[in-house]
């Protein structure tokens, strides 16, 4: 399973999000590969991913992609990330 964490530059907040997704996968007992990406490269990377997680303001810029996109309001809120991840994976 591959998940893309997206922020504007793909450096700061998406790495935080990636760490929290890693932690959430761990808590759920799942194996997965999480990658941080910026808005420019996310569209390409999303094609080979199972799920994209990002913030509300960036969803619009992602445009139309086939991969399901989940909006996370607070990247550092571990509980919210886990909840959204579960929704996204339809667990």
């Amino acid at each position, binding site marked *: 399973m591959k998940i893309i964490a997206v*922020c*504007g*530059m*793909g*450096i*700061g*907040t*998406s*790495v*935080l999000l*990636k*760490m929290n997704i*890693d932690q959430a996968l761990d808590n759920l007992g799942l194996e997965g590969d999480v*990658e*941080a*990406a*910026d*808005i*420019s*490269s996310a569209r390409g990377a999303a094609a080979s991913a199972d799920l994209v997680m990002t913030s509300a303001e960036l969803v619009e*810029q992602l445009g139309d992609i086939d991969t399901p996109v989940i909006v996370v309001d607070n990247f*550092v809120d571990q509980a919210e990330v886990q909840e959204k991840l579960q929704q996204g994976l339809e667990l």
Partner: protein
Amino acid sequence: MDWLVVVLDFIGKQILNVPAYLVGIIVAIGLIALKKSAGQVIGGALKATLGFLILNAGAGVVVAALDPLGGLVLAVTGAEGVVPTNEVITAMAADQFGAASAYILAIGFVLMLVIARFTPLSYVFLTGHHMVFMAMMLAVLLSIGFGDQNLWLTVLVGAFLLAVMMVVMPAFAHPWTKRVTGNDTVAIGHFGTVGYIAAGAVGQAVGKHSKSTEDIKFPKGLSFLRDSMVATALSMVLIYLVFAIWGLIALGPDAYQYMPGSEDGGAFIMNALMQGLMFGVGVSIILYGVRTFLGELIPAFQGIAKKVVPGAKAALDVPIVFPYGQNAVLIGFISSFVGGLVMLLVLALWLGPAFGLALILPGMVPHFFTGGGAGVYGNATGGRRGAMLGGFVNGLLITILPAILYQVMASVGLSGSTFGDADFGWFGSLIGLSVQVDSTAVGAVLAIAIGVVLLVLAILWQVRVVDKGWVPGEEHQKFVDEQRAAAKEAEKAAVAAAKKTQA
């Protein structure tokens, strides 16, 4: 015991002197501490190392794209002087002082972990290239101050000073860093810190009721500029074209030599355009590299933090704050550049003739990274006005401080370039002046005393200010929140009104 010296020398020069390996080793230690499998340790360490090398490759592209611009600006404005470039001065010093700097780097890093473990200053500085530059600067200044025969004194004092700088600077900046990031997860670990603190303080003074740079609404047609790849390339192309056309007008065909391979005016302009695009390419590569190695490094760092230094914070390179104010980065860069030009003028007209200081020309790279950072800090406490004036003050600092440091370094025989970022300037000047006294013992005591004073000040600051939860720019944050809430209300009202008319 010759073999031991050879082995240590090899590790120092060939492994610990290469930031990419250092990052890989740190990631490996972190992953081992996290009890990851051997495959994950090797993969993570290798990916971090590759990411760092990608970053270096991108930096090479950026520097190559900026080089012709530097010559062209020089030619059309007639300004001559020194462009401070950390890489150049480090390379120049590496032959003579490389070994000393490697020892300082290795011992300083361990000492930093010890200080982080046993004092309230629990920051772990992870900006590899700045560690290398600072170690090199200390190696040069102390080797010459103490003499070649006192290598171990140089190494021990240098390692202590390096360790102190790596924990005190993130601590001093931390209240402002918390305002920027809005949380307490990372610290800034970059030796341009004085510029960021100054920008934060200036922002607070001037911008209580200035709107955030991030609330600048670009017209719909301009929203493509929010993509950093597009914005960076476009702005650099414009800067390049302005100077290329200025060059053609001012110099005529003589301008061609500044763009290699230009036979006529058309080729000259198109080469300038290409260099502007290549700058955008370089920045994209840098960002890809940063992403790759931070993606491994930060999680691995938590491994070290949890086991070796419990509760420690990662102090990271300045682009870590860029996502918190992408418009502020651009505004800070431009106003820092303007600040650099203003201080250059002051140097040329007053300080140069009066005190013999060198003319420090604005380098695009330090102005982009530290100016961009200052813009973000200024915006966090003082909105648009804060970003503009914060960047400007940073520009003044990274021009006057290298001018003073250049003077100190030139007096020990190292000229041609100098270190560009603010902290190298003030710290290097202080240390350089104190070890140049006649007695080696007095010089060593003075240098250590500076380190101890910084350490004590930082511990007091950490305990009395940072841990008490003081965060600057409260009033500005309130103003921005109100503004955003009002904008949201207005939007809602507009939507409701539109619905009504439809019905």
